[in-house]
């Protein structure tokens, strides 16, 4: 017990919402952070599949933004949600093709370390 307030009381979900009004901008920040994480993932990870995963992360970050925006503009608007559905579908297609290419690369190089795929340069 710290002073007169019990920490457990504070952690009640409806209290938290009461203290901090969650506005769409918060979602934008979250989405921005997730997007950056995805981008960093693409730049840093050596494993091709990990890169694929980070690309999916970036796309989902965009979905968050869209949903937040759509939600903020009231229930009637369906643009955002239809856009999100398209994105999800396309992301799936992309993932398949990416995996197929990585598989083909694996068959040749016996490993999918992205740095080995640099035969062509200058």
């Amino acid at each position, binding site marked *: 017990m710290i002073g007169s307030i019990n920490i457990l009381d504070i952690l009640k979900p409806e209290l938290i919402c009461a203290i901090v009004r969650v506005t769409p901008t918060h979602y934008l920040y979250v989405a921005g952070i997730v997007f950056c994480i995805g*981008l960093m993932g*693409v*730049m*840093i990870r050596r494993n091709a599949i990990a*890169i694929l995963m980070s690309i999916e992360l970036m796309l989902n970050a965009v979905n968050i933004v869209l949903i937040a925006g759509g939600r903020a503009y009231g229930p009637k608007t369906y643009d955002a949600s239809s856009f999100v559905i398209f994105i999800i579908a396309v992301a799936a297609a992309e993932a398949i093709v990416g995996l197929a290419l990585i598989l083909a690369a694996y068959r040749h190089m016996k490993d999918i370390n*992205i*740095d080995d*795929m*640099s*035969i*062509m*340069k*200058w």
Partner: protein
Amino acid sequence: MNPVLPVLIFALPVLSFGITVLIGRYFPLKGASVGILGLVVSFILSCVVFYQLQVDPTRTIDLSVTWLDFGEYTIDLGILIDRFAAVMLVVVTLVSLCVHIYSLGYMKGDRRFTTYYAYLSLFTMSMLGIVISNNLFQLFVFWELVGVSSYLLIGFWFERKPAAMAGMKAFVVCRIGDFGFLIGILSLFVATGTFSFGALFGLSQAGAISSAVLVVGALGIFFGAVGKSAQLPLYVWLPDAMEGPTPVSALIHAATMVAAGVYLVARTLPIFSTVPQIMEVVAWVGGLTALFSATIAVAQVDIKRILAYSTISQLGYMMLACGVGAGASAIFHLSTHAFFKALLFLGAGSVIHSLHTNDIREMGGLFSNMKTTATVFIIGALSLAGFPPFSGFFSKDEIMVSVLESGHVWLYWIVVFTAFLTAFYIFRLIFIAFFGEQSERSKHAEESPKVMTVPMVVLAVLSVVAGWIAIPGVGPGFAEIGGFELHHLHINWSAMGTSFLVVLMGIGVAWAIYSRRFVESRSIYNTFKPISKLLENKWYVDEIYNFFIVQPVIFFSRLLFAFDMVIVDGAVNLAGWLGVRLSKFEGEFDLAVVDGAVNGTAWTARTFGRAVRRIQTGLIQEYVIVASVAILALIIIGYYLM
């Protein structure tokens, strides 16, 4: 007198030049006949013209036809025949005729006999062109044509290196004179808008032309004359021109071409007279040239070199006469000099023809086996020295008188001393070459053929008779004949006396040293060692010119060429060279660079390209990094800076 006559005189040599050049070989005497025939007709016609003008001086011809017109200005060609021109016509055609005949013998058996005669006709044509032209432009055209024909004739035996060099030297030095002449013509034309003598004289006499233009014009014309008549600064080409065949030297470098300069100054005297200080310059240049070349002639051993320097000295006399305004006496001396100097050269030619050497020390006692040549040569010498009653005496005396009366006392004494030197060096030649013991060469020398001796005899007669015109009783005096304004005809006995005395002293001294051997010439040579050495080497003038002008110009042109290669062209080559150096230095990074020097622009593009290419590492992740950094940068710049 209808104008066709003088045009015909001029046209005949042109015709003979054309014929000889193209089809000369098929004519008798291998083309010589064409030239000689043409000249005979020209000579007769010029005598007719001369006679007609003497009878009725008013029948001068001055007509011209437009050659190129530019609205307000026109350049036209025309002829001006007056008594002055008539005299020159006669002199030129006569001497040229004698040389043509003489060359038949001298040049017999030469490989390029026809071309020789073609060149002779070319020369006669251009000389006549100078004499009859009535404007400065036309005169300049023939002036340079004369220069070309002298180049061709001097360098006739071009197999011999010195002959080729002499030809080129003659043309370039004359060209320097022509450069001055051109500037003179340009300034006169731009100021007055016309070239013709008549208009120019009228304007200059009336004072319509500004003095600056007149000075430049007169100086320019005089500069041209100096170049052609081998006066002091530009005389160096004449002695070397002796490399050409002797008849050529006789015709061109004694009688006619070199006289063209004097003719020009005499013809344009009205312009000169309006600018007194230029007259002074002309006078002094003439006087000094006479003295200077006479001193050199004294110490020469080549027979033709002596005569060449003597010509320069006599030309100095004529230029001096023009300088003091005595045009008549200048032309009178020009005519007489033409005869006796041509005679001397032809004589020298026949001596060389039989002895095959120019060096007078190898000659000796030629009088015995070359009778006619020797006598004729002596007559010429006497006339040159100015020994009465020969023509030289009268013309030279008139010049001395006019110099004295015009008040140039210093010049008078210079001229008198030169007369002494002239007499000395010509008789030194006579005594060494024709008298004294025979050298082994002159033992088996035999007289030249008739075809060579006849012209010499003709010239000998003329060089005796020509002077008598000036004797009051016998002839009307040259001023009258030449159509110059009449000034009182009187005889200045004291001047005549001094000149005769000086001539006698000259002959005496020469006789003493070389004939009687009272004093050994060798000992005189040693006592005045430095001076005689100096004179022998022609005051080292050639060496000085070579050192101060020719070499620097060649050096400067090489310098400019290097400058052109390195600096101006360098921007491209240097960069290219640098590029090649850099690429070799870089080693394995460098793919096949364009072989050879790489062009500057390509090089800069290449190095920039090689730097930028670094980002193309082939690693996909680096692509993504670079791309996102670039986008970020763009947005930030867009967001904040703009």
